[in-house]
């Protein structure tokens, strides 16, 4: 008879194995602290950062700055992209006008045009937020466009026979029908924006969690680097979790 092990147990097992390996390698003296700091050292580093901050800013300020950039760039980019995509899906003319730019921008590595943005706008906030805006926009646009194009024709027919005007068809049928794909786009967009932000802070910045990692790395403070990475990771998981929670609330019917 096969043993039935709950899935959650596997997750715990994998975490435990990793932790055990970490403890053995560090406390056992197999690797130097510079390469992989032991847990107690990481905890101390975290406490240092939490109480004293890093280079004129508290840890929370660094986190806040990064979060604000993501928020500003992602929200504006995703909204603009969604509106553009809805228009592209609805009117072939708009699609014809906008497609070349969207299709060109979408696969472009963000860091390639970051250089241009720095030349134009300097290394301040403006260039970073525009960068994130440009990273989020094409992803959302394509998702919204496809969402509109994939609305079942019969749904639109049904609405028309119930007396819907063109605007009502859009507002009450096309928009909700496209919502699941808009959300998928938003989640991909958050991922792109997040990765872009950290890279942007590393290349051009003096604040934010990405910059903290780079700066600490220059001084070989691997403990700070690790704390920064763990924080970035947790922040990413939280961001995605928030979006998923919103998604299951708003489009609970998707795929059914």
């Amino acid at each position, binding site marked *: 008879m096969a043993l039935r092990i709950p899935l959650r147990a596997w997750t715990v097992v994998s975490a435990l194995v990793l932790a055990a390996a970490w403890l053995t390698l560090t406390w056992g003296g197999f690797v130097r602290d510079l390469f992989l700091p032991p847990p107690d050292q990481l905890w101390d580093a975290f406490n240092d950062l939490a109480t004293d901050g890093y280079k004129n800013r508290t840890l929370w300020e660094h986190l806040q700055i990064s979060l604000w950039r993501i928020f500003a760039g992602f929200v504006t980019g995703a909204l603009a992209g969604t509106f553009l995509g809805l228009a592209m899906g609805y009117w072939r003319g708009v699609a014809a006008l906008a497609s070349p730019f969207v299709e060109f921008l979408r696969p472009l590595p963000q860091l390639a045009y970051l250089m241009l943005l720095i030349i134009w706008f300097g290394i301040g906030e403006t260039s970073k937020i525009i960068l994130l805006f440009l990273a989020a926009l094409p992803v959302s646009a394509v998702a919204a466009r496809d969402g509109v194009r994939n609305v079942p024709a*019969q749904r639109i*027919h049904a*609405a028309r*026979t*119930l007396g819907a005007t063109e605007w009502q068809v859009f507002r*009450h049928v096309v928009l*909700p029908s496209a919502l699941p794909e808009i959300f998928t786009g938003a989640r991909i967009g958050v991922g792109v924006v997040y990765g872009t932000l950290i890279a942007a802070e590393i290349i051009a910045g003096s604040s934010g969690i990405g910059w903290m990692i780079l700066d600490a790395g220059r001084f070989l403070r691997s403990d700070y680097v690790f704390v920064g990475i763990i924080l970035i990771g947790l922040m990413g998981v939280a961001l995605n979790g928030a979006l998923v929670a919103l998604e299951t609330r708003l489009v609970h*019917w998707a795929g059914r």
Partner: protein
Amino acid sequence: MPDASGSVARVSSEAFVTFDNVGVTYGSGAARVAALENISLSFRAGDFVSIVGPSGCGKTTLMQTLAGFLKPSHGRVTIEGRTVDGPGADRGVVFQQPALFPWLTVAGNAGFGPMLRGAAKSQRTEVVERNLRMAGLWDFRDRYPYELSGGMQQRLAIVRALANDPKILLMDEPFGALDALTREQMQEELHAVWRRTGMTVLLITHSVEEAIYLGTDVVVMSQRPGRIMERIAAPFARRDERNSRAVKSLPEFVAMREHVLSLIWRSGHS
């Protein structure tokens, strides 16, 4: 688009819906399909018209021209004397697949038409409650379509169409996916609605029995190109006796069924 002018004279003055020499061709060149040809048909308000015919003979296409989803390549379709030019709330449609709005609750779907018209909230809830109770869906008003069975979804689709008080109800094989028992129950419900409201109904069905049992008129179509073979007046829908087993085994019912079936057989082999 060619206009069948001059043929209007044929249409009787009391006709409610007319198909006037309607033809529909899909595609062009080698892929050209003449789905409908020379369809002339009219019926009066309050008629219950059943349409039967082999698969692919153009029944859905015919309905789509009346619903306004499809412009005929030839001829015209009128309702109350006006040429059909796009969909409208005067023609309720029930599709073979329910095509409900999955983000709305059962009540939201049932009240969709009145909501579009901007009906007052109190009036809306009243209509929705009455219709949902009638369809046995009131207890499910806060559920979502994906939580309903196929038969319940189809009932909801009918309720949604009826909430608008359409002048005519167009149904494309609405009961095709249901089991025999549910199907009979739905037939009775549809019949009751028709009797009570006096609404005009166009029902496309694969079941000859259903067509004869419910229809005041049975239209038999033939295949490629789709044409009307015969139109038969059926007396059973207007009878007060509603024991469906009894009606369906009446000798005149059986005779009519065999006649229609033989027509379909013949058209399938031509």
